[in-house]
């Protein structure tokens, strides 16, 4: 009997290990829906304001010139920190099935536009809030033919939620490198036509600080609801 117990000890250890590992994976999948950064090479960098007018961009194997951004010419962002005190009733709805964004204030439709959601990686479903917006940043990621390097990404509105960490860098933003809206194209973010992104950027909360054209990190902003399944 003693021999029997000794021979089965490694087996019990193995079974126990498998159970513990499986339990760990199950718990982590329940609590963290997304652990992959939206822009794998610039996850932290893309969260910060930056303008790089002298750099070239790379997308789908093409070297392209990003539109220059001149902050001195930005005079029309109407809402800055401290100007708006009323409780916001704004929300954004993104339907991945139809690749459409709608923005509402109460029941009133403010705008509607085609978007491009994640193709290489899915755009997450759920309820989120905009935690920061910045006038421009740099995004990069991918490998091989999928490598991309995009300075001067305009009108970036980062969102996060209970199952989507702010540090993962998912956002709505303007897009100068493709014009294929209505079809998935991105690495997880919500691509918008730049003119639509500008209109939304100037409308959503949180408000911006006037000197840096960005909001303070961590402020609670406009709610975003993302639903459906990308084609």
């Amino acid at each position: 009997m003693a021999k029997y117990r000794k021979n089965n000890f490694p087996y019990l250890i193995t079974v126990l290990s498998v159970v513990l590992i499986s339990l760990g994976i199950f718990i982590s999948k329940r609590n963290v829906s997304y652990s992959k950064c939206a822009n794998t090479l610039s996850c932290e960098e893309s969260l910060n304001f930056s303008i790089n007018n002298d750099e070239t961009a790379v997308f789908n194997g093409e070297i392209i010139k990003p539109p220059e951004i001149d902050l001195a010419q930005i005079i029309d962002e109407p809402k800055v920190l401290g100007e708006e005190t009323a409780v916001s009733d704004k929300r954004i709805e993104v339907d991945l099935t139809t690749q459409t964004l709608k923005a509402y204030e109460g029941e009133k439709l403010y705008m509607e536009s085609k978007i491009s959601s994640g193709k290489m990686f899915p755009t997450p479903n759920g309820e989120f809030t905009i935690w920061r917006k910045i006038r421009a940043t740099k995004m990069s990621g991918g490998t091989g033919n999928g490598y991309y390097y995009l300075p001067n990404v305009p009108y970036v509105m980062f969102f996060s939620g209970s199952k989507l960490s702010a540090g993962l860098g998912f956002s709505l933003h303007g897009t100068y490198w493709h014009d294929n809206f209505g079809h998935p194209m991105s690495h997880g973010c919500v691509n918008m036509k730049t003119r639509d992104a500008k209109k939304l950027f100037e409308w959503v909360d949180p408000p911006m600080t006037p000197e840096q054209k960005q909001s303070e990190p961590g402020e609670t902003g406009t709610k975003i609801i993302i639903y459906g399944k990308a084609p």
Partner: protein
Amino acid sequence: MAASGLKKDVSVTTDLAYDAKTEIPFKEEEADIISPDGKYTLTVKKGMELNGLVPQSFYISSEKDSSPIKIFEKNSKPENMISVPENTFSPDNKYIFLKYDEQGKSRYLVLRTNGEEIRNGVPTVEFEGLFSEKYPEFVITDVTGWGSYSLIVINTDTIDGKTGPSWWFDLSSLTFIRLSSRFN
């Protein structure tokens, strides 16, 4: 703007509806299509039908130069008129592509927005003809937009009706690149 197709200021809430309408051949006198960055405007003017043909003229204006330049014109039968696809502008606004039907096929025409030739001696490029000649085993089912500054996104089926691959039409080399993933 969406409902009538007449030239008016862009309405915020009807922007999407307007874009969708541009897939339909124009029935009104004039319509504007704004580029994704808002800096360029394509204006399409339709004249009165004469001898069974309808004249269409295409103009480009920009933030920097608001006086429109004519980049293209064509007389077509009413059933073959040119329409403007939703994602017509290249991301850098240097090109547009247009769509028309001919002999039961959808044809796609690329133009420069500055009115110049695509290449020396080549004013426009019609790429459905190039594609079907090169790849007769596939048929173009949709052209959705631009994958980058000179790459047009094409979806195809096989000639026996099965779902085919997506392709880039590379405007810089006038060649087609077969893709491993499909753009739906």
